[in-house]
């Protein structure tokens, strides 16, 4: 069948619309892109092909506005086993172990359907990690909303927290950290970034690379439905009044199915039964098949009529673009298909052959005997245009950075502390993380509520420290310094526990990159992240770009969330962030230079957001990190806590108040003689 149809050009099925430029534009492809497709194929694409291009050439899948900037990140180093380009990055740990980790956004779905949007965001990032052969051991999340005074924001916040919790809790993966921020800038466009960390034996690492002509592609897991069609395209446009109509495009998660898929996938991988595996995530079967083929330099032929579906009458267009959750595409040698099916059946999952690997490099789709798509596979991925938009800082941003609040402070130290502790972004997040299982897997050594989460690696004496951080106010005021500061804060949080920062995954949330002021923020923030990662020897191993975070009120503040993992060489050397014993001495480590620009103090007490954020001295930060590790290893520290948002004042208060479940709080007495009058609010330095 395949050889007979392969020679004739593909055609539309009865009832499918003829493809025109207008239809392409409805699919978010512009005229230049459409012309390029027609030239590549030397004919008008079929409707199915148009769907394929619209998904793979969406911003979400193609990184067409971000690729040249991302290429400047440091991505190599002695710990790097797998850098960007795979489902997740992988770093080497001692004793044959490795850590796979990645962060990803699910902003737009969560903006219209918070519960399922957040839940499937967690599901997707878990799959990215376990398809590398790693067992997820921690999840973190960075979530941002508009002010809690608005009912809509409270609805989104509560829905997201419940969605994250229900999915992660059911999967049995502990949540070890995260960020929760409330700010006007996220009012129409909340951010939901989920990070997953997994452990694997380096020997078990598997890559999503289709190889071996004649090998079989199998669809594993849930059946394919009509949910989530064009989700990748949805993620690549601005939110508007009409976005609520996209609600049916939000996928629905089934964590129970995912748990079965996790166990089956790890059995398939560690058993050496399969050649490759990839999650059917954004752009579903289309991207998983096309990307695996491209990495392996082979072609694939899929018969969409073989894909198990949830409802009758689904077209190849729908089957290819469905983003139904909890599905995997697996490549196996023909002789091992039965074995794959046996493993899957044990976990009550379907594993259905849906295609095979070919030697002609074509991405070919057959449906009920009709060839409906035939595209040169490598060009489908590589020929997507790359844009380098104009970048220019807005004049208002420059003015804002140079501004200072008018008038004198309106509150003294005591009142200021009360105001800051009462600010939702700075207050304890216990209400949130108490809804996430933080102790399952029995390895949690430092639970949420401190600087970084720490977990034990079973059967070894080392541990992992994990965190995710970003001060978006800093990035908005000075994208370059703000980018540096996000990495520095993450590394400082890791080092406060005594761990060595190892590597980064980043979730780059920005507005519309076609706006010069937004692309400037993106380019400069990435430059800052890259410089800091180079200075700390923490390469970027992957991540995600989320553009078009705009609501009718404008772009969000640039928010590059930095996820980081660190190695605690001896778990027993871990350092908590809260004061331990009365009469312990409190030290301020680092230089206090008098910066209040971008501070929470100015924002909350003066009602003023502006000024220049404190510049990050990368060399001094590196020395600080090394000091913290060395001091922890020699047992000098009873606790260590990073001074960040809210400065020294909040750091002291948090350390004294104790952990979320402390029986009693401690007091602290400090002598600030010699510091500037406002110095209690200064951000840099740690104690």
């Amino acid at each position, binding site marked *: 069948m395949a050889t007979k149809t392969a020679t004739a050009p593909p055609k539309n099925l009865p009832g499918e619309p003829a493809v025109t430029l207008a239809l392409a534009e409805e699919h978010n492809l512009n005229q230049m892109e459409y012309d390029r497709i027609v030239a590549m194929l030397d004919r008008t694409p079929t409707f199915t092909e148009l769907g394929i291009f619209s998904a793979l050439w969406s911003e979400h899948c193609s990184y067409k506005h971000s690729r040249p900037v991302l290429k400047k990140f440091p991505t190599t180093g002695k710990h790097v086993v797998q850098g960007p380009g795979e489902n997740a990055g992988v770093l080497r740990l001692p004793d044959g172990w490795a850590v796979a980790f990645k962060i990803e956004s699910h902003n737009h779905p969560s903006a219209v359907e918070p519960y399922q949007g957040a839940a499937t965001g967690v599901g997707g990032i878990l799959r990215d990690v376990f398809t590398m052969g790693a067992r997820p051991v921690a999840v973190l999340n960075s979530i941002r909303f508009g002010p809690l005074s608005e009912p809509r924001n409270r609805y989104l916040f509560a829905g997201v927290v419940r969605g994250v*919790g*229900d999915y992660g*809790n059911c*999967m*049995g993966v502990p949540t070890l950290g995260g960020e929760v921020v409330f700010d006007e800038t996220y009012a129409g466009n909340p951010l939901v970034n989920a990070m997953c960390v997994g452990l694997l034996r380096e020997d078990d690492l598997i890559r999503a690379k289709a190889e071996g002509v004649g090998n079989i592609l199998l669809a594993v897991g849930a059946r394919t439905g009509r949910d989530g069609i064009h989700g990748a395209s949805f993620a690549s446009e601005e939110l508007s009044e009409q976005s609520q109509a996209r609600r049916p495009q939000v996928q629905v998660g089934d964590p129970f199915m995912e748990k079965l898929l996790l166990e089956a996938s790890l059995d398939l991988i560690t058993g050496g039964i399969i050649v490759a595996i990839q999650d059917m995530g954004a752009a579903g079967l289309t991207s998983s098949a096309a990307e695996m083929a491209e990495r392996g330099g082979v072609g694939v032929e899929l018969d969409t009529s073989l894909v198990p579906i949830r409802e009758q009458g689904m077209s190849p267009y729908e089957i290819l673009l469905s983003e139904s959750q909890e599905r995997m595409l697996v490549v196996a040698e023909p002789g091992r298909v039965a074995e794959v099916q046996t493993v899957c059946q044990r*976990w*009550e999952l379907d594993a259905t052959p849906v295609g095979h690997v070919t030697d002609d490099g074509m991405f070919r789709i057959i449906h009920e005997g009709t060839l409906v798509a035939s595209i040169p596979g490598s060009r489908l991925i590589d020929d997507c245009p790359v844009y380098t938009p104009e970048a220019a800082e807005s004049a208002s941003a420059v003015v804002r950075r140079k501004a200072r609040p008018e008038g004198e402070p309106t509150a003294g130290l005591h009142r200021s502390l009360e105001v800051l502790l009462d600010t939702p972004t700075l207050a304890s997040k216990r209400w949130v993380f108490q809804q996430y299982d933080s*102790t*399952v897997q*029995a390895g949690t050594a430092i639970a949420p509520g401190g600087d970084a989460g720490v977990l034990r690696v079973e059967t070894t004496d080392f541990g992992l420290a994990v965190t995710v951080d970003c001060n978006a106010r800093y990035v908005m005021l000075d994208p370059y310094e703000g980018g540096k500061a996000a990495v520095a804060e993450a590394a400082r949080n890791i080092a406060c526990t005594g761990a060595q920062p190892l590597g980064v995954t980043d979730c780059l949330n920005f507005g519309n990159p076609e706006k010069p002021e937004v692309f400037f923020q993106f380019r400069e923030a990435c430059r800052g992240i890259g410089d800091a990662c180079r200075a700390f020897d923490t390469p970027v191993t992957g991540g995600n770009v989320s553009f078009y975070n705009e609501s009718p009120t404008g772009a969000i503040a640039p928010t590059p969330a930095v996820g980081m993992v660190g190695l605690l060489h001896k778990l027993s050397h871990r350092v908590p962030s809260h004061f331990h014993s009365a009469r312990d001495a409190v030290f301020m480590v680092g230089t206090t230079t008098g910066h209040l620009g971008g501070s929470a103090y100015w924002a909350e007490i003066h009602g003023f957001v502006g000024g220049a954020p404190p510049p990050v001295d990368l060399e001094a930060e590196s020395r600080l990190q090394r000091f913290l590790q060395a001091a922890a290893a020699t047992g000098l520290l009873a606790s260590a806590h990073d001074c960040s948002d809210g400065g020294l004042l909040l750091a002291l208060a948090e350390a004294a108040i104790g952990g979320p479940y402390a029986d009693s709080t401690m007091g602290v007495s400090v002598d600030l003689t010699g510091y500037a009058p406002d110095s209690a609010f200064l951000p840099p330095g740690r104690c």
Partner: protein
Amino acid sequence: MMRAAVVRFPGSNCDMDALRAAERSGCQAYFVWHRDDDLQQADAVLLPGGFSYGDYLRSGAIARFSPIMQAVQRHAADGGPVLGICNGFQILCEAGLLPGALLPNAGLTFVSRPVPVRVENVATPFTMAYHKGETLHIPVAHGDGRFVAAPDTIDELESSGRVVLRYVDHGNPNGSTAGIAGICSSEGNVVGIMPHPERIVDPAIGDDSGSRFFSSLAQWRAAGSNTPVTTSV
């Protein structure tokens, strides 16, 4: 050596933690599958936490019908020790091996935190290594942990000393009746608890006070496994 069967339902997610906790305490622990009908000569059975079959109906309501539960019923009827933790406790209630039910938490949200619990019955095969009245801080992590039963059932549990664990010091995380965190059967061999002692069995993470739930088994056997374990208070 005690043989401890850890039952794996699809959706169990504390199965590995329970297995390792039992191993750490000197048991020969192994998994049995929900489709199995044989416990492979288990001395003790552990029903781990998780979301069996997704718990989309009612926590534990589907798991009770799985083939392995018939074997667990026989094991329990013969006086064999059974410990259900969290979802395992919910399954034991659904299966009628323990009285009462576990309803959604009073706060209507999932709760994950360490809670103070008092050990009130140290005669069961899983609590013999504790002192009566000892307070432990054990993590809970559940959405449906509010223990309820008819008033006369509660009276019966209280008067016959069948409350094994009780939340104390204002630590009741879910609104359980009388702060009940764990109970046992009238013979004492079947125990259900909401807190997760299997998560605190490793001194490397700073706390191993949960390990005696598992090391108790050896003590129970040494004491003669048919000793009635219910104590009056």
